[in-house]
């Protein structure tokens, strides 16, 4: 059973969350098709 990946969709929100958690960010540039 895979764990659902909860993606951030904005750079500023991701940086804020990363700062709060002390976690790195995986940034995936994707092709929405």
């Amino acid at each position: 059973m895979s764990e659902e990946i909860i993606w951030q969709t904005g750079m500023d929100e991701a940086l804020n969350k990363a700062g709060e958690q002390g976690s790195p960010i995986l940034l995936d540039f994707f092709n929405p098709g």
Partner: protein
Amino acid sequence: MDAVTYPNAKASKFLMENFVPLRIPYDEQPYMDSFKVRWTPRLFIMDPEGSTHHDAQGFLPPDEFVPFLKLGQAKIAFNANRLDAAVDILEDLLKESAASGSAPEAVYLNGVSQFKKTHDAVALKKVYLRLKFDYPHSSWTPRAYPYWHF
């Protein structure tokens, strides 16, 4: 990535437990130009301040994705001079994923981290010997060549 890697249980668990996952359309500005994104998949690992420490171009299957993430974690620690943390992550990467494409760079960075911690040049010679025998065709092996005589 959506069809194979992200649905993989090990990959998604490791990602969610250790990273803030961020997805941006490849053509969204100003990021398309600032990250010079010209093809997908295109992945970057950044520290919480937004500095990039590791990246990849192209599809990564689950067995490559997790060591890619670990190498990114280790490079963030190494670049912050948190050498104990870098060594812990790299040792784990090499224990779990020695056959991955990230492993040769992990061997190199692990040995350099050990040397910076101890100033014992034997750590660097071990880098060269391990790369020479375990990863003779890696581009990282000649980079360690100057350490052979230590």
